[in-house]
């Protein structure tokens, strides 16, 4: 019978017309991301041994790991930075990490206004000041002044 397909199509669209809309009002409504979503990166500096496996695993070579030997001749992490301009978000670095120090975050708004902001410093060793007993390393928050706008 000619025309039944047309009527079927019309009935589907009219149901969509009166049905619930699925548009997500993005800046107001935040998306519900999957648990294993590969967003930006974060580092737990206490776990990191500065082995450099992540830097080796990176196909674009964007990870720089600087390390130094402390007074006990133990290797410590000096600076950990990623050049996000070339990052593929492939996640090989996270896979390569033996200590599970590097992990993906849920953050996906990685746009920045200036090119130098793309250099993402995940850790920067700060030498202990004189008189301060603890030398607890501080994870630096990545700079994201412009990304909110």
């Amino acid at each position: 019978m000619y025309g039944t397909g047309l009527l079927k199509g019309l009935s589907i669209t009219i149901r969509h017309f009166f049905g619930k809309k699925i548009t997500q009002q993005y800046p107001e409504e935040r998306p519900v991301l999957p648990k294993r979503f590969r967003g930006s990166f974060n580092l737990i500096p206490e776990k990191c041994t500065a082995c450099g496996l992540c830097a080796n695993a990176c196909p674009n070579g964007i990870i720089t790991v600087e390390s130094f030997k402390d007074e006990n001749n133990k290797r410590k992490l000096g600076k950990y930075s990623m050049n996000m301009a070339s990052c593929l978000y492939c996640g090989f670095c996270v896979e390569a990490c033996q200590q599970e120090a590097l992990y993906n975050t849920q953050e996906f708004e990685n746009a920045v206004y200036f090119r130098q902001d793309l250099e993402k410093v995940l850790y920067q060793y700060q030498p202990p000041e004189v008189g301060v007993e603890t030398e607890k390393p501080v994870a630096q928050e990545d700079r994201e002044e412009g990304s909110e706008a």
Partner: protein
Amino acid sequence: MDIFLVWVDIFRNWLTGGIGIPTLAAEIFIKIILVLIVIIFVLCNLIVLVWLERKFSAFYAMRLGPNRLGPAGFFQLPVDIVKCWGKEDTIPEAVDLPVFKIASICSFITAIMAWAVIPLGKGLVLEDLNIGIFYFIAIGSTGTIAFIMAGFGSNNKYSLLGGMRTAAQMISYEIPMAFSLLGVIMLAGSLNLSDINEAQKNVWFVFPQIIAFLCYFISSIAEPNRGPLDLSEGEQELVAGYFLEYSGIRYALFMVAEYTHLVAVSAIAAIMFLGGWNPLFGLTFIPGFVWMMLKIYFMIFLFMWVRWTFPRVRIESLMHFGWKVLIPVSLLNILLTGVGYYVFQAITG
């Protein structure tokens, strides 16, 4: 809505009596004002229509549509208009300049001229021609020439192809459109749109003329070049079609013409098939003008529903359908109407 007519009468009396200008001059002056009012009315419709098109196209796809600018994105179009005004009027070197320039204006004029005979209520019509529907069909055909002018004047093979397609499509779909309206004219016994409206006091012509209504509906999608039968502006095969070289406000005029045409064919459908300003269920306290607008917008809803549901057809399928299906069916409808009318008269005496 007799109040409009009362106002016009008061204004006329004031002009002739109060100020004392000659009757003929006063008539011409009033006519000009009324024409302006109709044009403004059509353009106001247009603003609503573009907004509706955007919203509806979104709703049919389970989206929300524009919702940032103004309430429910209503101010999107005014901003678009300002943008169109601000755009540079790019005219390529090789175009046929006078034809190119006139074409966009011509398309708008032919679209707006149909509104001379379309009544929006009892007496709410610029010129109640006794051959109103004939005039409408004739003016609808002249719209073709604007598209050919645009296609030819652009001096571009894609534009020319688009223009030729439009011409072929509009000419072939004029015929079933006129034939489908003939059935209604036979039942009403008049070509005057107000008389046709009066003839539907008891029963709307959509019920005895359902075949004609379907034929009219399909051909009135094809005639103002709306989807799914918008073959003249195929992005994939014709780049854009006849308005390929147009930009800024000239391009906007083509869009304006398309939507004006859409309102016009919806108004004709409402008058010819849906009983015009005759109230539904005897709800006479609602003015006829409101009923008319409701019916026009119901038709527009149907047009948009069809547009955002069906995929486009190929040009030769469109032509085949027009010539091999629609025209025979609409002719058959005329035959059936004639025979049915004769039998009805024989039975009732």
